């Protein structure tokens, strides 16, 4: 079973790390990288970001999640999902899978030398 965290800001993707434990708030399975240290690794970053009692450090992952939540809410920006893990947390209607994109290696045209040069 893999981590159910949603990674990213511009596009969201699933985390493929193995599960360490479940978030004490939402119950989703999380890897160690997606559990907030401020909560003793008991809560995921999404839940930590919405919990006013959790203190953020300057530009840490809790800050990033709060920024992301605020940005999505205030601008109405809806990111694309790059993978779908069948998590109960995700809304299937929101999930626009393009798994092939992630597995395709972005290097296939990297030797072109940058933007607009061809």
């Amino acid at each position: 079973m893999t981590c159910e965290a949603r990674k990213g800001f511009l596009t969201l993707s699933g985390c493929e790390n193995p599960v360490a434990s479940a978030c004490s708030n939402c119950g989703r399975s999380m890897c160690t990288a997606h559990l907030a240290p401020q909560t003793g690794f008991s809560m995921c970053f999404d839940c930590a970001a919405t919990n006013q009692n959790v203190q953020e450090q300057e530009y840490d992952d809790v800050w990033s999640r709060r920024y992301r939540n605020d940005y999505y809410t205030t601008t109405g920006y809806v990111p694309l999902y790059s993978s779908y893990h069948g998590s109960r947390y995700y809304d299937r209607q929101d999930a626009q899978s393009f798994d092939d994109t992630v597995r395709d290696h972005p290097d296939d045209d990297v030797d072109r030398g940058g933007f607009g040069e061809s």
Partner: protein
Amino acid sequence: MNVVQAWRSLNAEQKQILVEKRIDASRSVDELLALMKPLAACDTMADKVRTKLGCSFALAIVVTVAAFFVLTNVSFAVAVIGGLALLAIAGTLGFFYFWTKKIDVSNNFREFAVPVLSVFREDFDATRPVHIQVDLSSPTHKSKLQSESAPYKHGVYHKVIDSMYHDPWMAAEAVLVDGTKLSWTVTDSIRERKKTKRNARGKYKTKTKYSKKTNIEVTLGLRKKTYDVAAPAEAELSGDEKRSVVKVERQVRSESLDPVVPRALIDLITDVYRNASLTKKEAGA
């Protein structure tokens, strides 16, 4: 942790960056943030304490001079000993004040560059380096001075001097997890206006006002097999057989030297994504 402890905790590379006032690095985003965040933390502490140190330094000099003359009436020896003690305190405060000024970096670094990288951290392909160039020197450093007007009169001000600064302080290039190539540049054009007038009591007063235009240019190369792209308003769309290349630009005006908000850049990039949709093949995958 105080500013001295924060500075001591920096490694040799980070201390060198504070001396050179420049970052030019190509490494993974996590490594970049590990390099940049302690510098930002040190700068935050230095900024907090600098004003207090400056005021205390000025006050200590005044108190030293005043105490010397007062104590001279008691005893010259006491005046010398007391004066030297106060001078040592003033010297220590002055040393730390000028030291915090020396290690100061542009607020663009702490309030724009670091938050932008933090927000996009999980969007950057972790296996590919992010190339970043950040100028940490003051936006009005003399090396950025482009021109200075001859003094002229304007209203009640008998002497006005306009200085123009050009500050291309950030450039970055990265590959995102969806294969998109992202690059951006941020350039400030600053007008510093020093206005001097004589008030009713005959005193000369000088005010300095700033006007800043921040130009943000973003280029996104989205893969054609992943996205169908429509150009956002006022964007330039081009490309080749593999990528749609969108160039967008925005100018932000401000009447201070305060850094441009990260949102200005983030909005430009999300505007491109708002105008991109998954290709039929990808949407059906």
